[in-house]
């Protein structure tokens, strides 16, 4: 028997029989609830309540030690492993703690959304170099008269860095990357919120790079998962070049609305596309897009679960700052194949469609070379007059008005639009003022009765 085995056996034998403890689970739950109540009430308070709370309650209280305020110099042992970032509940954007500096010894820092434009917070927490980040916060200069400055009302992201301690307490640090650019710790206001923000991002990226923990296999996102109005899909930590699973979302610049068509991107294709995207460094054109040209967007996830996107509006990469360009031959072949899987959306009309929607569907069907379907949008009593020899058709609806004089057609309606038929070579073509006359058929669906191409409308070249 080795020394290690002997020690192991002796330690095991040393332990007495556990006493019967039937109420252990209930006692633990009870302790959990009492601890949570104390934490909720005393540790983190909403700013609006903080003024009262600061005067009456000791804050930053340990969950197990009611009434004990954490001194700023206390340094609990770092315990990165128990941090379960996905279970972390972010404090309110204006949450406040009773300390004007960030105490050393936090075990984890979570980035949360604050007040301002939204972004996608990473799901993993920073557990390395946490004290360094606390130092960055504490070194920022105090603002002498916060709240009295007149600042631009620009808009940008707001964030909360939630420093989590081993006893479960939280010290939130709020930062506004807009307006007065304030950094808030407790009741103190500091400047330069960009510095902790950028340092957190750099440290988290370094932590990820050094991590030996195999990142999880992310769920492949779907078209529509990104929501730029809420910040979903805007990651401050990761970029689209880091996506490891993606869906190609294809759409066309059509008159009718349609959801992007999604197709999963195989890993090898994704590698080709991302390498091609990274090779573009020149400004990309943002002119009007030919309706025959598909636009696409890669909606992907990184190995750490960040949702990221790569824009291919009108068939060319665009990094959002105007840099990009058409894909190279290899990437274009991949895109052509993937786009081929999605197909082009075919607009349909029914009795609920408005006259304007029927005109839009007609134009889209013409541009998709679906002439039979376009023909079907003509009224049985009308004389179809489909354009010929065009490359694509543009129509910009300007007005819709009812026509009382054509009583033979139910709900006779005139739709006027700037209209042109662009030749296949794309040569410049003037718009004309077109009037589409529509009436309902026996099924109650608006159909086209007549199209009158009026005078040329000078729009310049």
């Amino acid at each position: 028997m080795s020394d290690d085995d002997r020690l192991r056996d002796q330690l095991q034998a040393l332990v007495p029989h556990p006493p019967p403890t039937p109420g252990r689970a209930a006692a633990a739950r009870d302790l959990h609830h009492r601890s949570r109540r104390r934490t909720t009430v005393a540790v983190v308070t909403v700013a609006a309540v903080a003024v009262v709370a600061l005067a009456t309650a000791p804050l930053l209280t340990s969950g197990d030690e009611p009434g004990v305020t954490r001194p700023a110099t206390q340094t609990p042992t770092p315990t990165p492993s128990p941090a379960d970032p996905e279970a972390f509940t972010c404090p309110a954007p204006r949450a406040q703690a009773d300390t004007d500096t960030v105490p050393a010894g936090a075990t984890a820092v979570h980035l949360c959304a604050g007040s301002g434009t939204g972004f996608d917070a990473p799901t993993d927490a920073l557990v390395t170099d946490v004290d360094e980040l606390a130092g960055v916060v504490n070194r920022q200069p105090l603002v002498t008269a916060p709240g009295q400055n007149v600042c631009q009302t620009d808009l940008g992201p707001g964030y909360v860095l939630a420093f989590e301690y081993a006893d479960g307490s939280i010290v939130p640090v709020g930062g506004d990357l807009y307006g007065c650019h304030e950094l808030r710790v407790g009741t103190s206001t500091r400047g330069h919120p960009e510095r902790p923000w950028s340092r957190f991002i750099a440290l988290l990226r370094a932590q990820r790079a050094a991590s030996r923990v195999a990142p999880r296999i992310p769920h492949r996102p779907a078209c529509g998962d990104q929501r730029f109005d809420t910040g979903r899909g805007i990651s401050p930590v990761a970029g689209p070049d880091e996506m490891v699973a993606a869906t190609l979302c294809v759409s066309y610049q059509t008159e009718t609305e349609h959801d992007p068509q999604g197709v999963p991107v195989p890993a090898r294709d994704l590698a080709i596309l991302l390498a091609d995207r990274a090779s573009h460094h020149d400004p990309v054109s943002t002119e009007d897009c030919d309706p025959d040209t598909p636009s696409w967007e890669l909606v992907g996830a990184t190995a750490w679960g960040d949702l990221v996107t790569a824009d291919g509006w009108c068939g060319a990469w665009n990094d959002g700052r105007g840099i990009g360009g058409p894909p190279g031959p290899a990437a274009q072949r991949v895109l052509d194949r993937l786009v081929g899987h999605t197909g082009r959306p075919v607009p349909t009309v029914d009795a609920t469609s408005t006259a304007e929607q029927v005109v839009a569907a007609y134009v889209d069907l013409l541009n998709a070379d679906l002439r039979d379907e376009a023909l079907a949008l003509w009224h049985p009593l009308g004389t179809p007059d489909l354009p010929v020899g065009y490359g694509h058709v543009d129509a910009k609806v300007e007005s819709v008005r009812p026509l009382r004089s054509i009583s033979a057609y139910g709900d006779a309606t005139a739709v006027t639009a700037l209209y042109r038929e662009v030749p296949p070579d794309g040569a410049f073509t003037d718009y004309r003022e077109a009037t589409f006359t529509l009436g309902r058929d026996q099924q109650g669906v608006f159909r086209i009765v007549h199209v009158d191409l009026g005078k040329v409308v000078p729009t310049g070249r």
Partner: protein
Amino acid sequence: MDGVVVGAELERAGSFDDFVAARGDALWRSAWLLTGDAHLAEDLVQTALAKSYGRWDRIGDTGGFEAYVRRTLFTTYVSWWRRRWNGERATAELPETPTPGPDLALRRDLLAALTQLSRGQRAVVVLRYVEDLTERETAAVLGCSVGTVKSQTARAISALRDSSALRDEEDR
């Protein structure tokens, strides 16, 4: 409402109770080796369970939850011991319920040797020799480097070998 399980908690509380019933004693054994005292061990177990209870829904009835509780137990012990039980009872008294095993005097000596270890050293010993964790796993639980685990283990083993319990055992 303290101690009362309400509404949607009933279902998860049932599962949590099952977990505690199944694994609570094993956790208590580790806690006892850390504290050397039955009451403090129970206190430590309940603290770790209470801190982990909120994660039950996320982690669930898998080995992952037990691992989480164990990590919490050890980090709570290492981080809070001095504050929570200031005037720690470094007792060498024998447990209230003796168990069959080595000679009583030898066990007393080993327990006395354990109480001479620092909290970190005792935690390392229990994790390495009772929980059977690797050096890397031990470092992950305690939030320190593998090098620290190595040095703490070496010092702890050296101290324990000076105890009559192990010396006598080796002499046999």
